[in-house]
């Protein structure tokens, strides 16, 4: 099924041209996917910023393990929970979903996203839920909160926010399946579109399980408090959504950004395209693990390797499928990126630097997950898990920044200065590594994950925690500076032109920013890189 909507006139009222400066009323009411995508991106950057501020507070609180300096015992659980939720569901996820909403229809040669009002409704529902979650935390609700009604509000708002995510994911996945240009089979769709589709489907099968669990926790907390541990049990039941392997789902669209941007920026066609398709799917296997809410652990040592080998092999298979295989997928994609860098002619541009460094962060976090799930390593429940989380989340945020630098010119018509953005990529990368690696080391010393102080172990515990706090601060500074740079560039920056990167896919075949209906004509696509083919044929050269 490769077809796109030719009856676009009906959507015009809902799709105001992104070229004109939209009024507040247009921002609020529009169902134009470019505007909805930009709303997601703007709100995601704001959520990321607030989440990072809270992460910095948590980071500095852990430096002195003897007493609370910034927070207090009552608020610690709440701040930990909302910081993670803001980074995951309030920051990185909407940032990547926003890029998908804005870019996927353009990449597929479609005039509009499928169910545009569903996508717009999804954004507002997500925003309402997130706002209510923050409000409930401020009023002493949320996990471990002291105000019972506001704990209920937190849970209800969580469900509303997740329903918003589902609505957006439905819109993206149906677009990828039904709105491709004629000739563009699913395997000819650009890799960012493919990865957005895979991530959306993964969200559609995992988030409902989270919603179901949250409904149970809500009803139990509001009425019975008999089975789910009251306010202290909230994180125990729904906390898996802000830890590994669920966070791998954030990395999937980030991998797609890398697989689309790097070949263009290295001027090398991705000859291993079909392999890349499979690799993105392999990473999504993590979704299966997330749904079962099971981390398959490997009992490795004890009485010798060969003792009970049959049982160990039986353990090894699910361990490999659920823990190792997604990491192998990420590792192989990093390999493809490195091959492109080696064999191509890389342009040292901001998107390339952000994407490559962000991928390293994701790989670091994902690879560490394998180590934690080896039972004999004794890392379960330690702060090692937070190190993994930071690697994957901050790494995905870095790649999303790269995606904004890459596709921002298409959406806003102006480009971000490479000279100003590249140092920010380096600072963000340093923040990612400093924010994760010392926690992994502290995890081996058994620093607990759930406590902000009251722990003690031999070794320079203050140094590890101080390094992490500095890492969080660097990431926060990089994010603030990136937002300021992006706002300045997109308002007054250098005009980008229609095809600033010499792109190969359909989004670069329309004007920057695109008109309301994206394209004047419906295209026939004969290869995965239709624009590159067309350029080659127009110059009479072999691509």
């Amino acid at each position, binding site marked *: 099924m490769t077809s796109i909507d*030719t009856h676009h006139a009906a959507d015009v009222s809902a799709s105001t041209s992104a070229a004109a400066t939209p009024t507040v009323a247009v921002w609020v009411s529009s169902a134009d996917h470019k505007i909805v995508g930009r709303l997601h991106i703007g709100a995601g950057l704001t959520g990321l910023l607030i989440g990072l501020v809270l992460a910095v507070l948590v980071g500095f609180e852990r430096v002195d393990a003897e007493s609370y300096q910034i927070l207090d015992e009552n608020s610690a659980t709440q701040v930990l929970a909302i910081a993670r939720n803001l980074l995951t569901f309030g920051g990185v996820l909407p940032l990547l979903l926003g890029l998908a909403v804005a870019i996927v229809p353009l990449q597929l040669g479609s005039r509009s996203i499928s169910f545009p009002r569903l996508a717009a409704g999804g954004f507002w529902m997500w925003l309402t839920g997130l706002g209510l979650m923050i409000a409930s935390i401020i009023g002493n609700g949320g996990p471990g909160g002291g105000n019972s009604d506001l704990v209920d509000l937190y849970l209800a708002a969580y469900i509303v926010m997740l329903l918003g995510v589902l609505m957006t994911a439905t819109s993206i996945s149906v677009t990828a399946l039904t709105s491709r240009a004629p000739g563009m089979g699913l395997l000819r769709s650009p890799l960012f579109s493919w990865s957005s589709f895979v991530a959306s489907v993964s969200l559609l099968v995992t988030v409902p399980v989270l919603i179901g669990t949250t409904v149970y926790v809500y009803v139990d907390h509001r*009425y019975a408090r008999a089975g789910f541990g009251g306010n202290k049990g909230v994180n125990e039941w729904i906390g898996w959504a802000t830890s590994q392997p669920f966070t791998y789902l954030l990395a999937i669209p980030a991998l797609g950004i890398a697989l689309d941007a790097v070949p263009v920026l290295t001027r090398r066609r991705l000859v291993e395209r079909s392999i890349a398709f499979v690799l993105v799917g392999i990473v999504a296997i993590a979704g299966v693990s997330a749904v079962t809410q099971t981390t398959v652990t490997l009992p490795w040592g004890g009485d010798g390797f060969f003792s009970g080998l049959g049982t160990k092999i039986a353990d090894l298979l699910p361990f490999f499928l659920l823990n190792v295989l997604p990491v192998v997928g990420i590792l192989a994609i990093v390999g493809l990126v490195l091959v492109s860098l080696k064999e191509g002619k890389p342009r040292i541009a901001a998107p390339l630097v952000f994407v490559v460094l962000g991928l390293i962060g994701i790989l670091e976090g994902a690879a560490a997950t394998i180590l934690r799930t080896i039972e004999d390593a004794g890392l379960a429940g330690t702060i090692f898990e937070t190190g993994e989380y930071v690697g994957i989340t901050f790494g995905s945020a870095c790649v999303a920044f790269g995606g904004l630098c890459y596709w921002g010119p298409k959406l806003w018509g102006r480009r971000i200065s490479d000279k100003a953005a590249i140092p920010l990529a380096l600072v963000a990368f340093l923040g990612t590594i400093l924010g994760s690696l010392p926690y992994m080391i502290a995890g081996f010393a058994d620093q607990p994950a759930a406590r902000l102080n009251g722990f003690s172990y031999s070794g320079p515990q203050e140094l590890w925690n101080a390094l992490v706090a500095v890492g969080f601060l660097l990431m926060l500074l990089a994010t603030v500076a990136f937002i300021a740079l992006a706002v300045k560039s997109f308002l007054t920056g250098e005009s980008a032109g229609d095809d600033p990167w010499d792109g190969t896919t359909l989004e670069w*075949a329309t004007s920057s920013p695109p008109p309301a209906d994206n394209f004047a004509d419906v295209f026939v696509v004969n290869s995965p890189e239709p624009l590159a083919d067309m350029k080659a044929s127009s110059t009479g050269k072999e691509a």
Partner: protein
Amino acid sequence: MLALPAAAEPAPRRQIFLGTAIACTAATMLIGGMLATWLQFRAEAPVRESAKRGFIRDWMPENVIVPEVAANMMLIAFCVACVMAQWAVYSAKRQDKTHTSIALGMTAIIGLAAFNAQIFIWTEMGVGARDGAFHSMFYAATASMAFLVIAGVIFTAVAAFRYLGGRTKELEVVSSHALYWYFLTAAFTAVWFVIYVQK
């Protein structure tokens, strides 16, 4: 701006049908996840001795009586709703406006009847959500199912309004609504077996 060759008229899309299928998949995961949690709680409940039934899991209190007749009637109602929804698709394909209208109306009424049966079960049981883990989970799971049923009735109403409003050649919404009722029947069958039969 570069110009690519214009394409021929594309094949019709099936966006609503596909969107419904995806929504059904998500809702399947919702109900499946809730039933899995239910079974986990049931399996982990401690064993106790019952005067009537010997050693049993201390899960459902003995004073709770689930009205099984009403639950069975709900299951039958869902099966009939599927027949009605499929009748609507069949009639719509034949451009038979009268039969399509009757079939859509019957589907909605049966959906409302199923919802009514759910309320009857809650009322007849006479227990509150705050009485214990079984009770709160029972209400959470059955209310989620009831929410999906109400969504089905609204879907039927939308399909009926669109059809009666003159869009008689747009069959996709009618067939999508039928797909949703098939999903509801499958989902309720699972709920019926786990919650009303196995308890």
